[in-house]
């Protein structure tokens, strides 16, 4: 329902970022989701992150599948091209779009129904290939748009609004992403914006498959006692592994912390993610340790959030395919057709 226009009047004192845009320039149409929906908080965090990073809005391609979460790209970055694809198939479309033009920022937004059920195959393979993207799953454990059926991330024993108990084991998207070789894996909570914004910023600056699982309560169908994806439940069980500052490569690092308390992760372009450890033994550089930690905490009923894994020497699909620097969509016949003289030679060899 994107015909609802937001007022275009900006307050003259609205500040511009280095790219010359105000925060309002990163907004989209008015959301049509339910009041209090976690997804709207994630949209706001995406807006904040892109504005703070001085990203030109039109240089972002936002892609989604089908579902409540997949509707949200309409509600942020109104000057970006968006693509609402088919259910569960955003990853393949994003992969193709990425191949066509390596210069843009690809933001894939999906939900747990879209990515963990119908689209689990595409999720798995896009991560495996190392597509350079930010892949956000807005995870509420429920099918909202079809009114309250369990999704594949619903916890065993959790109760639906209608009182049905889930008897299927849940899929853990973060655990899967780690196993599949994602080079950036994080989990956030829509109710914790100070944690979420730097996570999104760090994911944007990461080169390779950056996967972000954001627990995002569904106020209409999964915010009741007995749900493990409600605001109350997640607040009570949230176990942050680290606190995160995203430091632009241009900024001077001034704050001092005690030794051992901090981990600096330097990104390809010189940006630094500074992590303040909350769990003393936790290292975001160790994929196996991250998987173990997640399993241990999960067994205790805790929801681990924060930057869980990052590989500073990551690669992406274009690197694997050794593609030319110029985006494919700018190449013409001159660059792509081998020409008639070559064709004559090919003909001769076929006689």
């Amino acid at each position: 329902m994107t015909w609802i226009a937001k007022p275009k009047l900006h307050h003259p004192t609205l500040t511009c970022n280095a790219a010359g845009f105000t925060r309002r320039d990163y907004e989209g149409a008015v959301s049509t989701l339910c009041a209090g929906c976690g997804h709207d908080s994630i949209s706001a965090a995406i807006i904040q992150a892109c504005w703070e990073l001085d990203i030109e809005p039109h240089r972002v391609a936002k892609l989604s599948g089908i579902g409540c979460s997949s509707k949200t790209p309409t509600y942020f970055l109104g000057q970006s091209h968006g693509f609402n694809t088919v259910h569960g198939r955003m990853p393949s479309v994003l992969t193709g779009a990425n191949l066509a033009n390596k210069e843009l920022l690809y933001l894939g937004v999906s939900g747990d129904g879209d990515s963990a059920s119908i689209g689990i195959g595409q999720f798995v393979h896009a991560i495996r290939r190392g597509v350079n993207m930010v892949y956000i799953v807005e995870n509420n454990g429920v099918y909202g748009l079809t009114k309250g059926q369990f999704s594949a991330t619903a916890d065993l024993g959790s109760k639906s609004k209608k009182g049905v108990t889930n008897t299927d084991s849940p899929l853990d998207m973060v655990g899967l992403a780690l196993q599949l070789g994602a080079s950036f894996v994080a989990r956030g909570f829509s109710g914790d914006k100070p944690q979420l914004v730097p996570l999104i910023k760090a994911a944007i600056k990461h080169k390779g498959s950056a996967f972000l699982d954001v627990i995002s309560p569904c106020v209409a169908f999964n915010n009741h006692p007995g749900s493990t994806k409600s605001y109350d439940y997640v607040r009570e069980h949230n176990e942050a592994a680290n606190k995160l500052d995203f430091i632009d490569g241009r900024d001077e690092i001034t704050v001092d912390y005690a030794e051992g308390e901090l981990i600096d992760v330097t990104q390809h372009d010189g940006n630094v993610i500074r992590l303040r450890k909350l769990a003393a033994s936790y290292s975001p550089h160790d994929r196996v340790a991250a998987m173990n930690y997640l399993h241990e905490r999960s067994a205790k009923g805790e929801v681990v959030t924060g930057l869980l894994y990052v590989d500073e020497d990551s690669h992406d699909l274009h690197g694997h395919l050794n593609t030319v620097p110029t985006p494919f969509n700018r190449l013409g016949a001159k660059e792509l057709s081998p020409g008639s003289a070559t064709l004559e030679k090919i003909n001769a060899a076929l006689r």
Partner: protein
Amino acid sequence: MKAIRATNDFVVKFANVNGSGSASANELFAKSILRMGVPVSPRNIFPSNIQGLPTWYEVRVTEQGWLGRRGGIDLMVAMNPQTWDEDIAEIESGGYLFYDSTRPLPASKFRDDIHVIGMPLTAICNRTYADARQRQLFKNIMYVGALSALLGIDAAEIEKLFAEQYKGKEKLLDSNVKALHLGRDYAKEHLPGDFGLRVQRANAVGERIFVDGNSAAALGCVYGGATVCAWYPITPSSSLAEGFQKYCMKYRVDAETGTNKFAIVQAEDEIASIGMVVGAGWNGARAFTTTSGPGISLMNEFIGLAYFAEIPVTIIDVQRGGPSTGMPTRTQQSDMTACAYASHGDTRHVLLFPEDPHECFAFSAQALDLADRLQTPIFVLTDLDIGMNQRLTAPFAWDDTRAYDRGKVMTTQELEAGKYFGRYKDVDGDGIPWRTYPATHPMRGSFFTRGTSKNPEARYSERGDDYVYNMQRLLKKFDTAKALVPQPIVHAARQKTRFGAIYYGSTSPAMDEALAALDADGLHVDALRVRAFPFPGAVAEFIAAHDSVCVVEQNRDGQLRSLVINEFGIAPARLVPVLHYDGTPITARFIAAAIGGHMRASNVVPIESKVAHS
């Protein structure tokens, strides 16, 4: 006993076990005849298996240039005990059997009306070679040698082919030449000198090239500017994607940087393949996928999205026998309906029907242009018969002045100048709207692409009038396509006739021959080869000009016929189905019998006798 005697006009069939190395020996045999200046048309008939099952290679030797499958076998090279009985049964009366006579067979295993030539191939190999694999491989070369002596094929031509194949591998070259001559010498010494079938030097090949349709289509995609190929392995289309890879490695690597002007992704399934093509097309790169029937079924949801959201997509469907897994290594033209109306809701798609590798090349390149021009999926419907068999075909051609038609893409400058942009608005009256690539302009030209209904400015809308406007515009666009696609070709009979025939694709060479045979019988038929869907008006005019039109195709249900009836509202009785769908390529004999039978049943008396012709 009768003996078939023929020069440059006969059919040889090799019955082998797959995985035994026979394929390259048999291809060598076919090429050596080509080098004698005599056209050949070979066909692989192979199982869905890698090793151990029966496989056949049928070579039609035809100075007249009839490249369709003829039907009937004049010389059977029976190298597979598993299929012995059916192979023997297939030989024409008075024909020839060539077999490995190392082990004696009872007389009951042969026929009285065929000529039997035995050669102890295994025995000769066993005493010449110690290595088991060598015994197997050189047995194949040895029978090629023996056959070349029997048929009168110049050994020098085969040696030249060896020299080309084993350039720089002199050891292999020598051993192959040796095996060839072992076979030739044995034949000259022990086999009958006056063999009924002969190859005689001719000059009937001309400039034509010898290539399979999958390689040709792959090359067409290289020339046509495809940069993204996403695919999933499926017979008979896999060699197309692999061919694209091979040609790209040769012609699309930037000489200075060593980087690739292509991206090929073997996807996890056909759904992901088409999804990637949709994503790349949306973002302005030329992209294609190649598949066969089951893949088309899987791609249906995305095909509907690409149709409705208007995204350029090229799909090359190398058809095989369906439904379901069907006959995966046999040929059919049975995906036409599935492609023409693919996906749910009201959809119609542009289909191109190449007849041979030359058109596989040309139409694949053209499909990429049409996809951009029409902003919709374009299907190239080939089949296993053209795709996986080498065929003598007109040389590939490319005009260096040809620029890619990228269609209606609005530029940064146009947006900056304030030109109106409504993504789904028909501003030119041809039903084709303007589009923008992502990131064209900081403040203008962005839009949201979706599979839901929308208004002309690409905003979500469930209003009935917005929906109907869009659906009507899509129909108009489909109508625009009629003039852009390859137009039908009419072969007029020598004199006016009330009978017509419509055909397409790989049926072409058999049809040409059938028309000549009917003509020789004094039966006059006008023929029209359809080269694309939507059908231009010329197809309806052709049907209107004849009382009765046979529609010749390779499927059970007459899918082209149904499309013609549906699109033009033609009375079904005027269109007579001529259907061949057993998985083997259609033959001239079959077509001529079916059309001739129909005409005779309609009381047509040939007005000229054969005598009057000559």
